[in-house]
């Protein structure tokens, strides 16, 4: 269950891949919506941790158009609810995440993102 809140933290970590290594692009996705209890206080607390542009682009690539292009300065309850839905209720169960920089593909299988690299791809 790769929720978009987790996806917003994932970057390509192939050796020497430093350009366009975030966010990873979804493809061949099996998306599942699972209702989660609303905790809008948490959502608000999480705002500074988000890369907003990455989140909006990713949500749109999965067909959710509810988030505004720019992060609101003042949040209405409806906007926070929409953000809750995108972050906490959209689960990618199967699919691929591709680095826009180096093209590396990270598969998602049974809800688990496989971010392991082969020995020769590992940096640091």
């Amino acid at each position: 269950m790769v929720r978009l809140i987790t996806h917003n933290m994932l970057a390509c970590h192939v050796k020497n891949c430093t350009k366009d290594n975030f966010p990873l692009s979804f493809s061949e996705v099996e998306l599942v919506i699972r209702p989660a209890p609303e905790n809008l206080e948490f959502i608000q607390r999480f705002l500074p941790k988000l890369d907003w542009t990455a989140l909006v682009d990713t949500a749109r690539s999965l067909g959710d158009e509810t988030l505004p292009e720019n992060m609101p300065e003042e949040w209405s309850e409806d906007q926070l609810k929409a953000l809750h839905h995108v972050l906490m209720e959209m689960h990618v169960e199967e699919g691929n995440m591709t680095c826009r920089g180096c093209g590396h593909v990270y598969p998602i299988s049974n809800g688990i993102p496989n971010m392991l690299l082969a020995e020769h791809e590992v940096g640091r």
Partner: protein
Amino acid sequence: MSLPTPYIAHLTEDDYEHVYEPAEDSFILLDALELDADLLTSKKPTICVEIGSGSGIASTFLSNLLGTDNSLIISTDINVHACQATIRTGEANNTTLNPILCNLLSPIQNRLERQIDILLFNPPYVPTDLDELIQTQIGKDIGGSWAGGNDGMIVTNIVLDRLPDLLSTNGIMYLVTVIQNKPLQIIKNMESKGLICKEIIKRRAGRELLSVLRISRNTI
């Protein structure tokens, strides 16, 4: 405040062929978190990470302690069986965990630079020869949960070396150690990096003298 130990009866002998079965070292970590429960909830952590979640018992305990979806809890492991067990243990205890199959923090360390509020690590701490460490880490199975190389500290040191770049201003790490890891030396080492490090719980379990170190950026 008394929190129930997470339910793990859904994990079977077959699971424990590939995933470390919770034992005294797992439970001492839960006890340390429980000891600090008021502190942890009062800090309102937003991002928590467990490295090497195994069965998922510690991530689940932390999630229930903080309240489900009251913080983001990311659980990494290099063992796919462990990632699956982590999801199941979360579900069996009515919480949603977020496993990532990866080495340590590799795919998240850029985004989470100085952003981690709580970091849990029950590392492969058993002293072994280096070859055993390397083979078990490459094998990505149950051996990787304990074989720790020289002083049992090879994997732990990789994380501790980066710790100042990982913890948020209020960040706290909980680290399980055994006496062979030389906890006093770890404390000195952390202090030399400007961090605050304290042994908060210590106990003998069979042959092992276990302790949990709490490492933080600021005084607690």
